[in-house]
Structure formats: C-alpha cells, structure tokens
C-alpha cells in the first residue's frame, strides 16, 4: 500500500502525485503514440472516434460532473462546432484557424444558452437544455443558406504538409494532440479557484455564494468552457463523419453523451475517457452480438437505443460511480489486500428529502 509523504505544498498542486503515476501515464502516452504502427487503418479510425468522443465527454463532464448542471441537449454544441467548421472550410478559412473559431462559436452559443437559464435547478434545468437542443436542431434544419437544411453538405478534406489531415494516421495524431491539450486545460481549471468554484456550485449554491462565488458568472463560464471543448470535438467529428446533416445531432446523440459521462463515472476526467471507450466500442459489440441473436431481434433498428437504455439503467442501479468508480474499488481491494473489508462500499439506505422545501 502506497503512502505519500508530503513535504511541500507543491505536491498537492502538482498533477502527478508520485513517481508511479508518472511512469504509468508516460507508458500510456507512449502506447498511444506508437499505436498507428501496430493496428490497421479501420481500427485506428475507431480509436480516433473514441478520442473525439472523449473530448466531447470532457466538455460535458465539466458541466454536468463538476458544476452539476445537467445538459440534455449537448449534441447541439457538437453540431454547432461541426457545422461552423465545415462552413468555414468551405469558405476558404485555413484549417488551424477554423477549428478554434468553430469552438469559439460553440462557446458563444453556450454562453447564450446559459444566460437565460441561470436560475434554474435540477430537472427544470435539464428540461430547458433539452428544449434548447431541439430548437438548435430546428435551426440546423431551417437555416438552409448555411447548413444546407436536410440535404446537408460534405466536409472538405484538408491537405497540409503533404498529408491529408482528415483521415487515417494524421487524423489520429490530430485527435490525440487535441485531447491531450483539452485534458491539460481541464486539469488546470480543476486545480484552480475557477474549478473549485464550479464544484462549490454543484455541492451547495448558497455556501458558494457566501464564499464570494458569483453564481451567474461561474455557471456561464462553465457553459462556455463546456461548449468550447464540445465544439472542438464537433469540428473533428465533422471530419470523421464526412457529411453533415441535421439528424446527426439529435437527442439520441445527446443521450449518448450523457450515457458516456454516467457510465464512465460522473465527476472525474477518467470517467470521460472510460465512458468514451465504452460508447465508442458499443456499436462494435452490438454488431458482433447481432450474429448471436435470433433474426427478428437482431434486425431491429431500435435495438441500439434499447441497449443504451438497459446499460444506463443497470449502471445507475448497481454502479452509480461508473466504470471509474468500479476501478477505484478494485484498486482499493488490491491496495488493502488482504485486509479488504467486504462492507466498505455497502450502500447505505438513503431517503429522499424534498428539494422543494429544503
């Protein structure tokens, strides 16, 4: 069992708590860099998809996991990033300008969405974000001049330094780089007063206010940051799917993103990664699993959402801390071995206290 002996305040602020962590994360980074040499193009594309999902997941995690603001319409930000990026590329904006610009636009939409709903809480907030998501989806459909309406438009490839950045190996490295940048930014935010203020808003708005946290400002910042990260993911997503149409950014995608953060583990960046792996790999498993199911079930198009629903329900009922939570429990078991007590994580009975009259 590892015990960290602290001699310096810097140790609490640093990202890596001890040499072991540094070792394993370096190994992971090395593995990710070497991956294109080891696996073939199809699977590389799938991993790139997982990376893009992870970026979006970090975005949603900042909002839902860390600030406690549930967004049921997050696919809208993905869509804004994607459509904006595609639009800019088609109008001659250079790639490395277009991507951050699209993300900024998504952030602006995020701030605009946040502004009117700052005082809402809980289910009301969720419903409002759902409504916004639907409205933005309608905007994608109706604003034909920009989005091409139902017909959509295809996303141009980008050639730079003699490479096609939007496919295969270069795309993979692009996604990896952006994911690392986004993770670092998120980690920095979380160890700073901004991040602490966000967590405070999640846990007790009243107390946060009396500690000097301007609720409206920080909620808006949370929305803006979240939308920015998700918009980045959207720009990459546009290249992944190649062709933009409004039904790519519907409620189902929003729910998938939420599935990502819930299954991964709400409240941790690890959760965003695990969740992305899960949601990214799920269609593959379903495809494989279909071969084993009787034909009339397997052929149903409605199977996927149903399976999502089932997994969501099972996780919330039996593993509310998500995959990351389960991983922590396993680690604890090995850390304490053989002194692990089975009742360590036994769930306590809890009672609902009305949030209306608290």
């Amino acid at each position, binding site marked *: 069992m590892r015990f960290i002996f602290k001699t310096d*305040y*810097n140790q*609490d*602020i640093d990202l890596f708590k001890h040499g072991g962590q540094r070792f394993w994360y370096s190994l992971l980074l090395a593995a990710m860099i070497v991956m294109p040499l080891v696996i073939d193009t199809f699977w590389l594309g799938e991993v790139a998809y997982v990376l893009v999902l992870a970026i979006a997941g970090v975005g949603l995690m900042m909002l839902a996991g860390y600030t406690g603001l549930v967004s049921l319409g997050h696919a809208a930000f993905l869509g804004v990033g994607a459509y904006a990026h595609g639009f800019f590329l088609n109008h001659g904006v250079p790639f490395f300008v277009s991507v951050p610009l699209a993300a900024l636009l998504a952030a602006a939409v995020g701030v605009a969405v946040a502004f009117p709903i700052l005082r809402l809480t809980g289910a009301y907030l969720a419903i409002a974000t759902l409504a916004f998501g639907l409205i933005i989806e309608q905007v994608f459909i109706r604003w034909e001049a920009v989005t091409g309406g139902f017909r959509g438009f295809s996303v141009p490839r980008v050639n730079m330094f003699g490479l096609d950045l939007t496919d295969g190996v270069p795309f993979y490295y692009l996604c990896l780089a952006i994911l690392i940048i986004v993770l670092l*930014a998120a980690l*920095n*935010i979380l*160890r*700073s*007063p*901004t*991040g*602490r*203020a966000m*967590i*405070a808003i*999640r*846990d*007790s708005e*009243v*107390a*946060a*206010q*009396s*500690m*000097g*946290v*301007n*609720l409206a400002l920080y909620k808006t*910042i949370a929305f803006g940051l979240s939308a920015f990260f998700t918009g980045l993911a959207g720009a990459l997503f546009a290249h992944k799917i190649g062709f933009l149409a409004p039904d790519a950014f519907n409620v189902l995608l929003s729910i998938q993103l939420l599935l990502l953060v819930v299954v991964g583990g709400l*409240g941790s960046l690890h959760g965003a990664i695990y969740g992305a792996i899960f949601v990214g790999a799920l269609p593959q498993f379903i495809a494989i699993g279909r071969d084993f199911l009787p034909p009339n079930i397997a052929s149903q198009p409605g199977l996927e959402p149903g399976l999502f629903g089932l997994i969501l329900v099972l996780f919330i009922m039996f593993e509310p801390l998500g995959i990351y939570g389960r991983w922590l429990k396993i680690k604890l078991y090995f850390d304490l071995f053989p002194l692990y007590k089975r009742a360590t994580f036994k769930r306590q009975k809890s009672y609902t206290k009305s949030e209306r009259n608290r």
Partner: protein
Amino acid sequence: MTTLFRAENLAINFGGIKAVDGVTFDVEQGKVFTIIGPNGAGKTTVFNLISRIYDPSEGKLIFEGRDITRVPPHDVAGIGIARTFQNIELFEYATLLQNLLLGRHAHRGTNLIQDILHLPSARKSELAHRERVEKVIEFLDLEAYRDALIMNLPYGVRKVVELARALCTEPKLLLLDEPSSGLNTEETQDMAFWIQDIKVELGITVLMVEHDMSLVNEVSDRVLALNYGRVLAEGTAREVQSHPEVVKAYLGG
C-alpha cells in the same frame, strides 16, 4: 469604541408574516455580540438578511460606515463578512482542504486565462492561499482531516470545518449561526475557547446566534433577545437574562 456593523429598522415579510420587524442593533468592533431567542424568533432570518440571501422589505444594513443593503450576495465575503450555517452547508464531495481553499475565493487574485494555462502567477497564488489555509487548520486543530472527504467526517468535525471555512475568508465580521448545536459539552467548551481566541488573537468581531446559555454567558460581551421578529431586550448577558419579558418568552421561570 467603534461600531463595525449596524442594523437599522430591519424588517422582512414572508407572505404576510413579518419574520423580522423593526430590529435595530449595533455591533461594536472587536466584541462578541450574541442574539438569543426562541425558535422561529427570526434569528437566522436576520443572518440571512445580513449575508444578503434575503432582501429586507424595510431597513438598512451599515457595515464600516457603508450602506450595504443592496449589495449582491456574492460580494458580501469580499466586503469582510463571513458566516457559518446552522444546518451545515459544506461541499460534501470535496476534501476539507478544497472546502477551505474555497473560503479563499473572495481573495482570488487570478483570472480564467491564468488558471487554464497554470501560469507561474497562478501557482504562486495557489501556494499563498495554501499558506493562509494552513494557518487556519493549525488554529482549529484540523490537521488530521486535511484530505478527508467531508461526507466521511463526523458531525462535530463538520461544525469546526464550517468555522474554519468562514475564517479562511479573512473576515472582519464573523456570523456564527448556532455554533454549538449538536455538540456535546466537551466540544462546546472547545468552541467557547475558539471564539475567545478569534476575538482576542485574530481581532475578529463575532456576531452569534446561540441557544446554549452557558456558552452565551462565557463569551458574550453584549446580548440581544428576539421574539416574533422583534427586539425584546439588549444589554449584557446578565441584564438580558434577568429581563422579565425575556424570562417569560424564552428562559422560563
């Protein structure tokens, strides 16, 4: 003898009921001022008015000579007023250290960009905050619980953490809402010592709501009795406790 804080004719209506009615009092700098009264007398409501969670329907709040009646709630900490909550409002899913560091928020010093990029100025600021928080941890003997999650801490410790967090904001006026509620005799005695240390060593003015009369007697310089939102009596602890109206309404024969 300077008046740090003055509540003037404070009143608030909740749908027809006057929860606080014509309450006026002065809090002298460097002293401990206690508000007593039966449950429902409006004591916590007065606190909520001072921390600007509620808007008064009448009256004024004057702090350091400045009218703060319309100040937004999140500016109160920056002005120099901190409070604890009767029903503990800590951040359950964060560590004790994070809770206390949040108490430093009013003295922030970095902006969003510095935070995202974790510039050297951000790290310097973090270390400075950590130093201040450590002083408070030392003051209240909380070293053993630094990295514990609040939800795993016992009630008595949580009350102390509430106090610690309020102290981290470096207040001039500290509002303590029933600091001894739920504490046993030993913990209450500790609380009494700490309140006195806060007054003498840190020079912070304390405004307190309390039910425990022994604690009131031990630390208070001045006492105010409320009932049904109105002032019954004001004076030293002895004077107020022997006041006939107070005895009738609250203390019993």
